[in-house]
């Protein structure tokens, strides 16, 4: 593994995770490059955004959606999950392996603690993966 900082992108639905909380969380992680990208709905996330994140050197990507059946655009969170699945499979084809991208779906409408816990777990998992996506 090289010595460059861990680079993780956090795409989040602005209805389920507060932008200020996301930015504060990212800023507090010293020695890591965490980027939080706010979306009007997680369904806005596209294969292209996700794969571009990896092309620009991301080691991992998370997509925070809203709770099951709570998407105010009805199917946005379902679409986001399908797209994440497609990118996970594409990453395997590319040779980066599966597991570098994850959907975080809160159990309650606004559950910041659960989201942060899952983000922490994902960061720990990614930092343990052999880092082979350096540019």
């Amino acid at each position, binding site marked *: 593994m090289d010595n460059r900082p861990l680079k993780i992108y956090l795409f989040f639905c602005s209805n389920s995770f507060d932008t200020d909380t996301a930015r504060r969380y990212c800023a507090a992680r010293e020695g890591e490059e965490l980027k939080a990208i706010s979306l009007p709905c997680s369904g806005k996330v*596209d*294969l*292209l955004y996700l*794969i*571009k994140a*990896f*092309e620009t050197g991301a080691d991992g990507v998370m997509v925070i959606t809203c709770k099951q059946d709570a998407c105010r655009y009805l199917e946005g969170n379902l679409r986001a999950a399908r797209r994440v699945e497609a990118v996970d499979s*594409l990453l395997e*084809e*590319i*040779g*980066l392996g599966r597991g570098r991208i994850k959907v975080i779906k809160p159990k309650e409408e606004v559950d910041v603690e659960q989201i942060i816990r899952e983000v922490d777990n994902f960061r720990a998992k990614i930092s343990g993966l052999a880092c*082979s*996506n350096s*540019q």
Partner: protein
Amino acid sequence: MIVAERKTIPELIEILKGQKKVLVLGCGTCVTVCLAGGEREVSIISSALRIASRLAGFSLQIEELTIERQCDNVFIEKAAEAIERNDAVLSLGCGAGVQAIAERYPAKPVYAGLNTAFLGILEERAVWTEKCVACGACVLHEYGGICPITRCAKHMLNGPCGGSREDRCEVLPDRPCAWQLIYQRLKGIGQLDRLKQIKPPKNWNASIHGGLRVIVREDHRI
């Protein structure tokens, strides 16, 4: 429309091995509609190839471009400069598009990035179904507008085969029996009598089995 799907990334990496500068060229027509080779797919595949080539130890320099139609010289012209400044072209057009580019640029390697699958329609969101095999001698008028060659797994012109269960095909149980559809359709338009006629064997010379097909319209050639 023509329906295609992309080759896998390892296949594409194998095809492009040894190249340095590659133009990934999309097509704005059929393959855009079937989400295989339009502007968006050009970007996704290019990104994937940049990462994969980096991992494989040779970093491809990739330029992205999508033209309106790859099977037409008028539109191919718009890619001329980009084709010239790259070592090779990875075409995300259908088989006709790939060959049109290759014919226009004989000194440039042109590779197919897609597998051209069939002529079909969008059945429902993100589901495409084959409807025509381009046999060259259409018989749709005899079967109520449902093609037994394309849609019957046994390509029977005198059906049904007797093996269908309910209204499902016995070969492909997740598909409807084409002959059930033909019967219902002919009944609906009052043409069930057509089923009493025995159809002679089809002359396949008009299809690909008769060799390369060319259509010439003399009245448009002057």
